[in-house]
């Protein structure tokens, strides 16, 4: 049995190596002096310096953060409310509604993105940052509901009863008793939603107006134009940020669903 365990562990390490090596290669090449990715690597930070003067990337970064911030606020509030309703009440169509929150995950993004493009064009919403916020909120809602629901599982509803019997109204109880207790879950959900929005490429790609893009869309356009180590540098920063966000989530929420 020990032999099997040893094989298992070695295998696990191989998988982790497989998952990380390409990313590490990409990061290492962002510190390479050569414009043409010539090897061996000569260490330099000139591509990060180049980022500082790239105004296109600056505006894309600002756009990305704006969209992520707005959609995080909206989806966290709405998703938390939905999780509360599912926790507190049993009602007809609850199962159905619980399933309906998931289409954003189970329909290919390509189809959701193009459908949004068609519909927003049709009704006059058009493309641009506001359209992206509309889309990103829908995509991050299911994650918020899942994460907040997980936290609610260990909530003692006697707390709410106590507040009510002391004279607090329904909304006062929700706002001043339940929500503060849920805060770790809500923070995790918000970080999650932020990461989902920041990493979202497909929906943003279809909803980007000419000249108004987000970081992933800008990176994609740059790659298709031709590879430069500047793309590596910006990608390194993006991946660092999203890993930090998800590490933050994992402080509050246990992936794998065991509480």
């Amino acid at each position: 049995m020990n032999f099997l365990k040893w094989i298992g562990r070695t295998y696990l390490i191989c998988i982790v190596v497989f998952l990380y090596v390409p990313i590490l290669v990409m990061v290492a090449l962002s510190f390479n002096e050569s414009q043409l990715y010539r090897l061996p690597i000569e260490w330099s930070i000139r591509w990060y310096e180049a980022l500082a003067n790239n105004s296109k990337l600056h505006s894309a970064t600002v756009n990305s953060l704006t969209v992520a911030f707005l959609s995080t606020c909206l989806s966290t509030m709405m998703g938390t409310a939905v999780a509360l309703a599912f926790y507190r009440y049993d009602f007809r169509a609850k199962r159905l509604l619980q399933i309906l929150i998931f289409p954003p995950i189970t329909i290919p993004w390509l189809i959701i993105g193009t459908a949004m493009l068609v519909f927003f064009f049709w009704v006059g919403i058009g493309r641009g940052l506001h359209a992206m916020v509309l889309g990103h909120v829908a995509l991050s809602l299911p994650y918020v509901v899942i994460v907040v629901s997980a936290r609610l599982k260990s909530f003692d509803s006697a707390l709410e009863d106590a507040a009510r019997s002391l004279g607090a109204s329904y909304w006062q109880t929700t706002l001043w008793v339940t929500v503060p207790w849920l805060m770790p879950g809500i923070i995790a959900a918000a970080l999650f939603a932020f990461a989902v929005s920041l990493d979202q490429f497909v929906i943003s790609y279809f909803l980007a107006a000419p000249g108004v893009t987000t970081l992933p869309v800008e990176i994609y356009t740059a790659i298709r134009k031709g590879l430069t180590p500047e793309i590596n540098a910006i990608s390194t920063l993006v991946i660092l940020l999203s890993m930090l966000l998800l590490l933050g989530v994992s402080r509050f929420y246990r992936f794998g669903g065991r509480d």
Partner: protein
Amino acid sequence: MNQRAAVLSLISPAYLWLTLTILLPLSAMLYYSFLSDVPIGSREVSWTLENYGTFFEKAFYSELMLRSFKLGAEVTTFCLLLGFPCALALAKSIGGRTKEALFLLIILPFWSNALVRIFSWTMVLRGNGILEYYINWLLPGTGPLGLMFTYPAILLGLVHSYLPYMILTCYISIDAIDNQLLEAARSLGAGKLTIFFRLIVPLALPGIVAGSVLIFIPVIGSFMEPRLLGGRNGTFIGTIIEDQFTAVFNWPLGAALSFIMMGLVLLVLLGFSPLVRRFK
């Protein structure tokens, strides 16, 4: 406050939002798929089945659809073959802090930028890239590998992107299997292979199914990965649909192709459901 009002006020913002961003757009797309042209300005537009007809008339589209489904099946299979043992090892052969740390390490790249990860592979695979450089350094005279812009490159990139999904879903269901059950089987004389195929695999089936669905569906609709890693070999139904919306501006055809694709995906999932039920 009565329950009805409370439920409504809590859930209606989210579901109205989903209606506006998912349900109505999909309906609009369905509507467009039966139109002869995009209704802009004063263009004459009529109802037609032609967009769906195009798919069945031209072998080009059905061949690409088949190619996409083959890609989806292959990526899912590879993810299962690589991911299941990994989930098993993670759930049953280590414990404590190492387990948590390793789990996090595998899950973290899961949500991080898909685009950046595909870009990373172009760095590894491209001509004069890292892989070619080091293989030629180890074995001088190997020459160019020619991996970039091939079907295997797309396969590799997609497996790398989606592997964590399979590990996560399988891990959740394997981790829930009671160790005492495995112990009991062992003490009753079951061999390792018997335990694996008659106990662990059937019990982990929900995780396998969830992982497969979560991988198969997006892979069929992928367009960015085949474009970046496949170059001219990267034409799939996803890239054709994308073209209809961003380059050719034949939205009705793109819409029809999307719905044919979703219909076929549904058929495949229905085809597999008896198998799933039998195991239960």
